[in-house]
Structures are given as C-alpha cells and as structure tokens.
C-alpha cells in the first residue's frame, strides 16, 4: 500500500526543476559508508491483508471477561456521540493550534476543557492536558519544588504505586528527598505526616480515593501542610468528583489525575489523559500548553495559546517543562463526554458507581471467609480480604469469565490475600451476583 500520489512523469518533471537526474542524487550528502547496513523489513501488504492480520491479533485478546479491575484505570461506558465527534478528521488530523485564526475550533474546545477541569476540581486554572496521570504528578511535584525552592517530598503510600515508582524513576538524577507515610486501616496516617512535615517540605501528595479505594477528608492535613509553607497535591479520580469533596474544598493547591475515565477507552494503557488544575498563583509554574480568551482587531472573542514564555520552544533549558505535544484529542473526548452528561448526568454517573460498589460490598460480605474492609468509606472501589492467596483466586475466576479484581500483593508486601475490586456503572446487579456466586465457588 502506498499513499504517494506522484506519477513517473511528475517525478521526472520535478527532478528537472531541481536540476538533478535522479532521486538518488538528492541523497548524495549521506556518505556511502553511512548507508544502512541492513533494512530487512517485510514486503508491502494491502489494506485488507493488514486489517485481517490485526483482526486476528485483536481476537487473541480477552474481550468477554466481566471486568472488576480498576486500580486507577476504569471500565466506564462511552456514549456513541463521543466517538462520532472526535472522529471528525478536522480535529484529529490537525496539530497544535500555533496559528489561532485557522484553529479556533481546537482552541475553543481546549478552553472549554480547561473550564470543565476547573469546575470538577474547584480550582482556578487548568492547562491544556498532559500525557497521563503519572507524568502529571511528576510535573506537579516539579512545580512545587520550583515554587518553594525546597527539595523534600512527602508521599502518602495510598498514592498508586505505579505513580510513586514513576516519581522515583524521574528523579534518579535529581537531589530530592522522598518520605513515604504509611496507610493505616486504609487511611492516611496523620501522626506520621506530622512527624515528617517541616520547613524543608516542598509538597505533600495524597490520593483520593486512595489506592485501596478509601475516601478521606484531607482538610485537616492540608491545613497543617500549609502551616509549613508547603504545597498540597491531590491525585484525583475525576468520576468521583461528581460526589466527593473537591480538591479546592479541602484546600489543595494542585490537583492532577488520570482522565481516562472521562470518555477514553482502556486501550491497553494509552493514549490516556493527564489533567492538572491549580490555584491561580501557580499558573506561571504550570507545564504545557494553556489556552486563553482574547479579542481580535474587531473586538470579537477569540482564543490563543497563551503564557507561552513558560514553554520549551521559547524558554528552552529554563522552561517549566519539556512538554511539547500533549493529549489534545483525549482532552477533546473528556470535554465532549462531560458536555453530554451535563451537570445531572455527571452526578448520576458518580451515584451509580457508588451505589453499585455498595451493593457489591454488601453482596460479597455475605460470602463465608470473605471480609470486606469497612474501616473507611469508599466510592466505587474497595478492598476485600480473602481466605487464600488473591493470585490464585484471580486465576480461578478468569476461568469463570471474571477479571475479579486487582491482587494487592502485587504492589504491597504482606497483602497477598487482599483483592481490590472496582465496580463501575457498567456492572449490572446480575453480574455482581454472579461474581459473588463464582467467588464462593472458587474459595
């Protein structure tokens, strides 16, 4: 398959305008000694052949499992209109809106996205998106380090281990001191936080609901964090913000998170959406693109990329971040998704998730030997203690057609018998009851 429109005659005419005899001549600056030692690639295939090949590969992946795995990445329903609208190629074959006059559609959509992220989190400003929740957390941490001029980070161990591991990887060559504070009975440990909090602390990072699914009110801890002049960062789950106390209400300075749950398919790990919102005082420390509203020479409203002096293409090694392209198309999914749901639909989504998870807790707690952890309230994900190794239970449940949860032993030592179960609005009462029956059978 080829997408090249040139006829042999076109090529000849063009070569003669250039003043060379052959295409090879155009490459004469590449010394012969630097020509590829090999370029052993398969021969071209037709669109039909490639589609068939990949269709077969897709069929090798499990699609029929009833999914109760979350752990930060959730199986939510995506209305058809989301797919239809983001499939408009005027959106997906454009690039970063450097030239505002021919990109008003994109710029307005991003401005609306920023507004929606501000509404969800309660905070003042949002950027145009980041790669994913983990890289967004790294960027938030870097903002705090710059803003405070300090180098100590306190991490709650209820923050997704994947993200904590990412922070450690990103800072291997930087002098940053990390302290992790434990989670006790699913909740962040106040005493431990206060023990380590000092005037060298740049930021404290919490996740709500935390990795175990526990919901907390962090207001008291955030207040203490501020007393030491440090920033408080929340890793938030956007769907939960249809119900839970907002980062702003708890006093957080920066909220970041994974936006996948806002109309973005699971797609085996990406592309996803990192969102970030902050208090307005921090806007000049923010990474990435930001869209602003302004007027044209006739006074009409229009949108532009703004505050660009923060960015790498202008500030180079002094930029707030190295980020260039972000995840605009995923941000578009989020703004379309939220627009469709509207204020009431968004609350309803949160309510359904909460209700279904509560029903699942109730149902599973009736199984002999299964202990549903109830020390903290939860949103749509919760922890259960099983009478045997969770890995074994998960394996057996796969045979019964369920991805029944995420075994916590993979991320936390000593929690081998614990299982993290997510229940989204997509799970039906019947599926939850079957989950319980099957679980009872395999235990």
């Amino acid at each position, binding site marked *: 398959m080829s*997408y*090249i429109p040139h006829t042999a005659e076109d090529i000849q005419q063009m070569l003669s305008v250039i003043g060379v005899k052959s295409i090879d001549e*155009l490459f004469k600056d*590449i010394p012969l*000694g630097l*020509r590829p030692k090999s*370029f052993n*690639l398969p021969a071209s295939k037709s*669109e039909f052949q*490639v*589609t068939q090949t*990949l269709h077969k590969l*897709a069929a090798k992946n499990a699609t029929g*499992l009833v999914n109760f*795995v979350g752990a930060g990445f959730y199986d939510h329903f995506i209305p058809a*209109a989301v*797919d*239809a*609208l983001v499939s408009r190629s*005027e959106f*997906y074959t*454009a690039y970063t809106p450097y*030239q505002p*006059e021919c990109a008003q559609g*994109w710029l307005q959509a991003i401005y609306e996205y920023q*507004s929606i992220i501000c509404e969800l989190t*309660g905070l003042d*400003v949002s950027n145009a*998106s980041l790669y*994913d929740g983990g*890289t967004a957390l790294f960027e938030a941490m*870097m903002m705090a380090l710059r803003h405070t001029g300090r180098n100590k980070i306190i991490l709650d161990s209820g923050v997704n281990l994947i993200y904590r591991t990412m922070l450690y*990887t*990103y800072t291997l*060559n930087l002098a940053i001191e990390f302290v992790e504070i434990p989670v006790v009975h699913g909740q962040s440990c106040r005493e431990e936080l206060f023990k380590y909090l000092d005037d060298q602390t740049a930021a404290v990072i919490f996740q709500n609901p935390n990795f175990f699914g526990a919901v907390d009110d962090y207001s008291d801890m955030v207040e203490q964090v501020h007393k030491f002049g440090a920033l408080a960062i929340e890793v938030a789950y956007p769907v939960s913000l249809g*119900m839970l106390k*907002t980062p702003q209400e708890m006093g957080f300075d920066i909220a970041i998170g994974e936006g996948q749950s806002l109309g973005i398919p*699971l797609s*085996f*790990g*990406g*592309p996803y959406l990192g969102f970030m919102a902050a208090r307005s005082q921090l806007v000049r420390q923010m990474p990435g693109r930001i869209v602003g*509203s302004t007027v044209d020479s*006739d006074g*009409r409203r*229009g949108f532009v990329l*703004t505050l*660009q002096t923060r960015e790498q293409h202008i*500030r180079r090694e002094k*930029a707030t971040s*190295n980020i260039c*392209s972000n*995840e*605009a*198309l995923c941000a578009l999914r989020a703004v379309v998704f939220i627009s469709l749901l*509207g204020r009431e639909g968004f609350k309803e989504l949160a309510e359904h998730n909460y*209700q279904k998870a509560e029903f699942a807790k*109730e149902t599973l707690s009736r199984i002999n030997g299964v202990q549903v952890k109830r020390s903290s309230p939860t949103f749509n994900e919760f922890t259960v203690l099983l009478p045997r190794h969770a890995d074994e239970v998960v394996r057996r449940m*796969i045979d019964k057609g369920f991805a029944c949860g995420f075994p916590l032993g993979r991320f936390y030592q000593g929690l081998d018998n614990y299982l993290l179960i997510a229940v989204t*609005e997509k799970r039906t009462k019947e599926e939850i009851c079957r989950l319980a029956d099957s679980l009872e059978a395999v235990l």
Partner: protein
Amino acid sequence: MRLIFEKHKEGRRGFSYGASDVAGAKPLAGKFCRATEARLPCLSELDVVRHFTNLSRLNFSVDTNFYPLGSCTMKYNPKFTERIAAFEGFSQLHPLLPQLSGGGMLAQGALEVLYESEKLFAEITGMSAFTLQPLAGAHGELTGVMLIAAYHQHQGLRRKYIIVADSSHGTNPASAAIAGYEVKVIPTGADGYLDLVQYKKHLNNEVAAVMLTCPDTLGIFNPRIKEIADMAHSVGALLYYDGANLNAMLGKCRPGDIGFDLVHINLHKTFATPHGGGGPGAGPVGVSQRLVEFLPISRVIRRLDATFALDYNYPKSIGYIAPFYGNFGVILKAYAYILALGKEGLIKAAEIAVLNANYCQARLKEYYDLPFDKRCMHECVFSASRQAKNGVHALDIAKYLIDQGYHPPTIYFPLIVQEALMIEPTETESKEALDAFIDTMIQIAELAKNNPSAVTQSPLNMPIKRLDEVRAARQPDLRWKP
C-alpha cells in the same frame, strides 16, 4: 461561536444512565461530599453534537488543507488504522490484565503487537532494542536523558553537561535540564553546519551526552556526522539522536549505523499516526547494546513456546516512565502503517518527501532568501528577510497563506534564522498541491515588493482577524466563569 457553557439550558439532558438496578445504599457521609456543585452545562445530545461539529469546521487539518508545518511531518493519516485501533480486542483491553496471575494469555495479541513493533523500529533505526513507553517525542527525549544519567551513574561517573546545537528543538535543552543536566549550546557555523571548533572546545569528560537532530532543523544532512559522533565517543559521551526528522532517512541512513547510542522516533510524524490537535503522539526510544539493561520496565519478551510475556527482571532498569506499555493505540496504528507500506513503501516515502521539499526549495529560492543554500532533505528553510524590509514579516506571510486556505509553514524556527519559514511538504502531497502553494508563495513575494499592505492586513477571510495576544498574556482569561 458561543461557549458550550453559554448554550446551557436548565432542565435539558443529553445523556442518562437510566434507573440503577441497585439503589438504596446509605449515602456517603456529608463531610466527604462536595458542597459546591460543578457548573456543567445542561444540553441535549444534538446541542453537543452541533457544537463540536461546528467547532471542528473552524480548523485547518491535513484532511482539509495543505499543512506544510515544518518539523511536524503532517503527512496523510491512512483511515484504516483508525478502524484497527477501534477493534474491541484492543480498545477494551485493560492494561492490568497481563499483570494478573494467569492473565498473560488474555493479552497475547496486544503483547505481540508491542513485541513486533519494537523489532521493526529497531531494524528501521539500526538500534539494539526499544522501549515503547514514552508517550510523546519530548517524553522520549526525557527518557533518553534519564537513560544517559543511569549509564554514567553505573560507570561511577558524575557528568554535568549535555551539549545541544543552537538550531535544536527547544525540547532538547529542556529535557536535559529537567533531568538534572546543565546545557551547553554549540552555534551553527556560517556554512550551516555545527561549528566544529566550538564543539571540540566544549567536549570533555564532563559531557554526559551530545544531542543532535539529523537531518537538522535546517533540513540539512551533515556529511561529517560520523566525525561528530566519533568525537563525542572519544570523550566518553553518549550520542542522542532526535528523531523528529527521521522521515527523510527511512532506508537511506540509520542512526545506529552512524554510532548513535539513543534515538527517539515520533510515531505521529514518520509513521503517520494522527497528530490529534496536539497529541496523543508516541516517542519510542531505541538504544545501543550498552544501554539495553537500563531500559524502563516492563519489557515484552517472546518465550520459547512462542507466547509473549511481560518481563520485569532488569535490575539496572531506570524503572517506570509511563504506567504501562506506552500509547498503545498510537503504536498499533504505526505498526499497521509500517506493515502496509513495507520496506519499499517506507523507502519511497523518504524519497518522495525529499523530492517534494527540494522541489519547493528549487522553485522558491528565487523569491525568498535561502540562508543556507544546500541540498535539503525533508524540509527547506527560507528567510523572509527580503520581504521584511518592506514590512512583510514571516507572521504576515503566514496569515496571508491562511486566507488562501493553506496552513502556514513553521515560522520563526529554527531560532538561528531571521524571519524563518520552515516548509515540510511531506510525501503525500501531489505536484499539483505543491505548485498551487508555491504559486501563492510567489504571489506573496510579488505583493511584498509592490503592495505590502495587501499582505499585512491578513487574515480577512477567516471568522476572526488577528488576535490580541498581548492582552491574552497580560490579563489571562483561562476559563469560563458565569
């Protein structure tokens, strides 16, 4: 157009989850619940569909307009790859499935795509191994710099500097700085090549790496690239290849054969995945043999029984740079594209991309200054200095082109060219499309000479005129408020 919030009407619904089949659980205690409602718009589904459909029509895109945005490789994005990415077996797959006990067999197709893509990228670039985790080109650069740091740390050496060219993408120095390095900038000489005298002067055993773009951002292939590489290696520095401009090199030259230790490739450029209005892209990183052990985990391996698995057993790995396996949906599209083009198709893509750029350069060099008159590769860089003398700047030319239905070239980059116009036509544009664009550029050059104000008023045919960017920056209005 009105904002979506301004179309709100109380009582409208665009989507409903229906009645829940379970209900009646005790509500969450008030102290955990939000007290302030999110002020989200209430609209019908048609309201939303019409709003975003009409917004889409306010954009130039590859599918609607010629888009010669230099350094961004805005080639045609084949449609069939979208259909493949939407296959349920890919789009609905939870990334944690293969990490469950016994779950590896549930994602064999996806793991195979990753494994085979890595192999293809390695062969295309001549590198030993790849990580597909980086989520964009700049993210690939940052990953590369972290690998560089890990390599030197394991050698027991602390090196302070990373060298970049003054013509480099801003992401190069920014990535180096974010990962904890100081940046040294080497100027471009009068001949358009890296100034080797300055380069030699700055190279020493405190340099961790040299980051180069090849062909560079002027679109030029430096015939002395091997010498530059060898000099870096002679002081123990690693060599990083910014693969933003790889499109011209397919089957013509491989970074691995030159001696580069690291390379990132932009799948949304060279491998035709859609740019999506500014992402998602993907920026896989390839490395030479001595860096393989530091690559991020997890890695995909092929077992003796021909099944695929995730492997975490790399004690020197830098760790996780993304939560999972990269932007899988993007990698999948690039994989399908490479399979469709095959060896000959990729080589032809490079050849025609270079032919198109040289054709633009040849036809326009009479009308615009060419700061470095050399054979170009995938793009050509002109200067509008001649036009600027009459008050027609690169920005004015860009706005006039918009009026004529062309997305402008990249302007004011690279920074070393005054009034830069960076034109990258790509291989998927026909001779007719190029001729029409070139004729418009010639017309602008004539106007700049005879009637400059006919250019500087642009755009006049768009829904809006030039926007007040100063006001946007002085009084930031970054969100809707009621």
